[in-house]
């Protein structure tokens, strides 16, 4: 493209830059300042108040455990889906559509869906009753059953959030020519070796971005938890919400926000380091 009007691209990106500066960078700085100041003076009061809160440790632990439990399972299911769908011809489109439906479902709705299944008189208990495993309605979502509640939330998150990982993985797989796998097969590589030695290394960029996206989203988990367990299962974003809306304490809410951001950024950096993408080693 000719270079005689070099200002054109700047005019084109300017509106979005201005918008993001105003509504992304400014609030970002505001959040950081809000969390690290008290009445306009730099202070760690908010951070101390956050750390001293009864729910702080629990919410931190819960959020991390949930992320650790959910993300690997989502990745495994997504890889299985991608591999399976690569083996079929007809019906592929329909199956992919069904698998992507949860992509359009909000975490709140996902929480409500699993509430219908896991509530006391719900379908899960009905199934267990029908199989003779339980004799009366059992509660899974109360604070007396933290493990069951944790599993319920994890299942709901896996149900909803796998779709996005699957879409990114399948998009990545679509870009790997099948000749590579065929060549490996001709030289005697079995399915397992082909998957680990050929497919997986070639979809590194997809793996990387799926993991980053999914992990950041997992640290943001909130409404699915709220729909299933109410306040019984504190998580970081939920605490931020409560400090903001219930306690009207914007400073501590901001401190939680900064903590979530730091954790998200740290996870991103870890992924960027752990899964190195070298463009020269990709097709």
């Amino acid at each position, binding site marked *: 493209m000719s270079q005689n009007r070099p200002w054109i691209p700047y005019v084109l990106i300017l509106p*979005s830059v201005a918008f993001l500066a105003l509504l*992304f960078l400014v609030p970002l700085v505001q*959040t950081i300042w809000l969390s690290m100041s008290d009445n306009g003076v730099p202070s760690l009061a908010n951070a101390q108040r956050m750390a001293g809160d009864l729910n702080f440790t629990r919410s931190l632990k819960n959020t991390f455990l949930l992320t650790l439990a959910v993300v690997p399972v989502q990745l495994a299911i997504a890889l299985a889906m991608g591999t399976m769908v690569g083996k079929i011809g007809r019906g592929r489109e329909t199956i*992919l559509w069904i698998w992507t*439906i949860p992509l359009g479902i909000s975490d709140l709705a996902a929480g409500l869906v699993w509430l219908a299944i896991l509530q006391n008189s719900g379908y899960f208990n009905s199934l267990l009753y029908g199989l003779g495993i339980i004799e009366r309605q059992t509660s899974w979502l109360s604070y007396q059953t933290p493990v069951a509640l944790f599993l319920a939330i994890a299942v709901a998150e896996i149900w909803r959030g796998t779709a996005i990982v699957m879409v990114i993985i399948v998009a990545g797989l679509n870009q790997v020519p099948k000749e590579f796998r065929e060549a490996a097969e001709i030289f005697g590589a079995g399915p397992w070796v082909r998957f680990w030695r050929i497919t997986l290394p070639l979809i590194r960029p997809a793996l990387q*971005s799926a993991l980053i996206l999914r992990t950041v989203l997992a640290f943001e988990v909130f409404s699915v938890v709220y729909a299933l367990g109410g306040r019984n299962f504190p998580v970081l974003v939920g605490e931020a919400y409560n400090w903001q*809306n219930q306690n009207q304490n914007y400073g501590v809410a901001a401190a939680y926000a900064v903590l979530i951001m730091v954790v998200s950024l740290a996870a991103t950096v870890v992924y960027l380091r752990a899964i190195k993408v070298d463009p020269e080693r990709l097709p």
Partner: protein
Amino acid sequence: MTTTLPKTAPASFPSSRRLLLWSGIAALCAWVLVPIYLVALGAFGGRQGVYLWPKTVLPTGVSIEPFLLFLRTEGVVGSFLNSLGAAGITVALSILLGAPAGYALARYSFPGKDGYRLLVLLTRAFPLAILALPLTVSFIKLGLYDTVVGVGLIHTVLALPFAALVTQGIFLGVPRELEEAAWVFGCTRLQAVLRVVVPLAMPGLAATAVFAFVISWNEVFAASVLTVRNRTLTAYLLTVLAESPMHYRFAGGLLLILPSVVFIFAVRRYLFAIWGISSK
């Protein structure tokens, strides 16, 4: 060279393996679909349905009535419309601001391009909705607090980076030569964009718009923080959650799911292309 053929050669794919494959696929399909079916049963089952015990997976005692009753509950229609409004603003803004940026990224190389891409990618590493927290104060000052426009603005922060990256890929898919041909045959740059690039990019742009819609429609946190009376549907459901009866919650869940599912169906052809692009 060994003389034995690989046992898994597609032509001689053993039927037991086929069976295993299709069972796996069917199980995963059921895993996605059955919960939606069950929440729909809950939404149409009404108060009695909730306490029915033990339940069967057959639709017994369902009618449209409980769902309509839910829709007539005060605040539901209003919040539904608010959600549509916020999503509409998000779609319009993210395309209007994002598509030109996507075009610039696709067609020009200019100093600062990498910086811009970094800004856009940086947003991905942040839990963006959280940034609604400090905005409460400035939005109150600007009169944007508790308005659909305010929610639309913060949702655009979520959708805009996505729109810029995805439209970049879409515009890269329109061969540059077509645009150059338009120039040579008498178009100005703007005419070439309007007559050649936009018509060819239209399906992809429409898909981007749908994604922006879904992003806004599903967002809970920022909408809940920034509204009090003019709630979006998600914010409304979240705040009344604790007080509402079970079947209302299920009806609300279904109402949230339906539009998104329809939209995802509408853009299913572009899903993988778009994520193929935006995951680079």
